[in-house]
């Protein structure tokens, strides 16, 4: 009965050097930010999904992603304090945890346990995927008095972006560049942008190589719990040599892992594809619920909210603005539901996953909305066992360990049974007729 207990005491299987380097990178980033702000080192706030880091950096801006600040606060168990701060201002229980964390934090001067987050000199809003973004940025613009620039990223309904959408985006990017030239008094340097994009590209390719490792059996990577930590440079430090080096380190360590047979879980029993934002407030507890069952995530959609590089949306110095436009359009947050669910189904197939886990965010009514239908579609139409768990990315009041654990245990119990006794026993039956289940059982018996 205590089979899981000894495991739980062990450290989760992070890549040792990469994790250490990531830690230092994050520390350096926040330490550098402390002195930023004002005309000399202006600060731009941006949103992760399809962000314009390269362009903004080429004008000398430091970049702050309040979503990432918020998730760092949640991991440090500080988010509730800021959320309560925002609720005291009148923001309701159902308002996005990222938004409340940020507004609550700003209200007390931006001081976090990992450093002081500078106020914005510019608010760059990507109207993409999430409809709350624009309201959030408006609230910041009003309370902090920074200028706000919004660009519109058309929601994607086709796998390859439409020519018209790309042209529309490129036109907006030129507008944005002219706006930045006017605001900063600096002139745009296309050659510099291309150099930055070349570095982005290298980091992106290394990142994709890292994510691809999940195809191996057993998987040498934890494509959700671990990868979420390694997302930081691909979103925040894209375009720097630091980011390139980081992913090179990751991939070297993976080679070592494979040669030493040192995997994220000692014995890989279940391979999962994970969808949704993690519960950062109880990250470790949530992870332990999986590890206990020998479950490892081999692919996940969330690490791609910034960009679907593995689907070919790379930055390309030979087509600078076009590739930025395509990258923004192709970010995971900006995909329509049919595209999202097809992608998940493909991940299940390509990474030989046993099941899908969806983690829904209670306070998210944009990226999360539709996940209940996704669950039903995966089970009934795609025949993939799927579990839907709901808590919150930022608000610990929504993370109820006893109930979540009970659902996970029940799910893995039936998954385990399915593995042992054949498909009809698994949690993927849905509307499939009983007779279909029975014949499947016979097949197994014959084998």
């Amino acid at each position: 009965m205590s089979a899981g207990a000894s495991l739980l005491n062990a450290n989760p299987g992070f890549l040792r050097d990469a994790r250490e380097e990531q830690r230092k990178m994050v520390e350096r980033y926040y330490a550098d930010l402390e002195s930023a702000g004002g005309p000399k080192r202006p600060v731009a706030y941006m949103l992760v999904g399809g962000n314009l880091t390269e362009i903004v950096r080429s004008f000398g801006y430091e970049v702050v992603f309040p979503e990432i600040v918020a998730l760092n606060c949640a991991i440090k168990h500080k988010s509730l304090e800021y959320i309560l701060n925002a609720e005291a201002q009148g923001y309701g229980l159902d308002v996005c945890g990222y938004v409340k964390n940020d507004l609550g934090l700003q209200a007390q001067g931006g001081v976090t346990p990992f450093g002081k987050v500078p106020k914005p000199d510019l608010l760059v809003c990507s109207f993409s995927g999430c409809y709350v973004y624009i309201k959030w940025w408006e609230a910041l613009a009003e309370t902090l008095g920074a200028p706000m620039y919004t660009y519109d990223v058309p929601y994607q309904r086709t796998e390859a972006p439409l020519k018209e959408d790309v042209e529309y985006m490129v036109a907006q990017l030129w507008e944005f560049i002219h706006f930045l030239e006017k605001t900063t008094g600096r002139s745009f340097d296309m050659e510099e942008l291309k150099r930055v994009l070349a570095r982005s590209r290298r980091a992106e390719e290394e990142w994709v190589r890292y994510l691809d490792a999940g195809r191996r059996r057993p998987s040498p990577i934890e494509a959700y719990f671990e990868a979420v930590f390694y997302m930081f440079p691909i979103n925040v430090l894209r375009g720097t040599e630091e980011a390139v080096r980081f992913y090179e380190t990751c991939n070297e360590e993976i080679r070592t892992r494979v040669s030493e047979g040192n995997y994220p879980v000692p014995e890989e029993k279940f391979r999962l594809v994970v969808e949704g934002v993690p519960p950062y407030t109880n990250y470790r507890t949530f992870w332990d619920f999986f590890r206990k069952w020998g479950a490892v995530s081999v692919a996940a959609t969330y690490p791609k909210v910034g960009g679907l590089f593995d689907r070919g949306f790379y930055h390309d110095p030979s087509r600078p603005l076009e590739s930025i436009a395509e990258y923004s359009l192709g970010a995971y947050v900006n995909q329509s539901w049919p595209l999202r669910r097809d992608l998940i189904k493909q991940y299940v197939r390509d990474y030989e996953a046993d099941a899908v886990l969806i983690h829904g965010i209670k306070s998210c009514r944009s990226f999360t909305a539709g996940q209940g239908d996704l669950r039903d579609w995966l089970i009934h139409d795609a025949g993939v066992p799927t579990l839907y768990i709901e808590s919150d990315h930022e608000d610990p009041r929504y993370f109820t360990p006893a109930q979540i654990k009970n659902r996970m245990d029940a799910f893995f119990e039936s998954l385990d049974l399915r593995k042992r006794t054949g498909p009809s026993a698994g949690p993927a039956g849905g509307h499939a007729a009983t007779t279909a289940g029975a014949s499947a059982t016979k097949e197994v018996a014959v084998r």
Partner: protein
Amino acid sequence: MKVAVGMDIGSTTAKCVLLREGEIIGRSLNPVGVDIVRDADRALQLALQDAHLDRGDVGFTTGTGYGRFKIQFGQLAVTEISCHARGAHFLFPKTRLVVDIGGQDTKAIRVNERGEVVDFAMNDKCAAGTGRFLDVCAGALGLDVADIGPLSLNSRHPVRVTSTCTVFAESEVTSYVSRGKEPQDILAGLHASIANRSLSLLQRVGIEPEVTFTGGVSRNEGMVRALSQRLGLPVNVSPLSQYMGAIGAALVGEERLHGGAS
């Protein structure tokens, strides 16, 4: 021949069932408190007494329910979702859908012809429409929860209840009383509203006969009728429905005992 023990430690009671060769030979039900270890021990003792056996006869013990990890003499812990499925299938072999309405949870479980879980859905983040809701409503009406089922069957003009939040149940019920509604009509309205809520959960996993109703609330005849009406299907209810989890656990244990699926 050794017996398989199934022990279901819930939030208020411990249920214990002894199984030998697919037959229930002893059982017990007693309240559970803070000292789960002691209460589980007592539940086993009582069940053994019931079967005129002693601890030496125990072959394998499986725990279920929220307290399942606390059963120190147990060899295996299984969630009540798997156990209710097994238990319902044992008592009604044609079961394809299990509705389990307990104190704080409502579960819809789809099972296959072997009694294995195919899919399940549970109430999330909200205890609206669970057994606790009925407890509170009974209390607000000054009735014993055991009496509300039969009483509700006399209803001729059920009220319409939209909110089933347990926390607000008292004021909800009180306001009906003050508007002069009869207790049976209020109760019938409450039952219908819980049936509605359960239906959406059941639809999520797919409705297919036979349907077996388990958990503490299945002893409420008014609720059985409301659910059956809403589903448009007959609903199986066993006099042993409270023991469903423990029976399922014992079945899992018996399988292990006789070297079934490893």
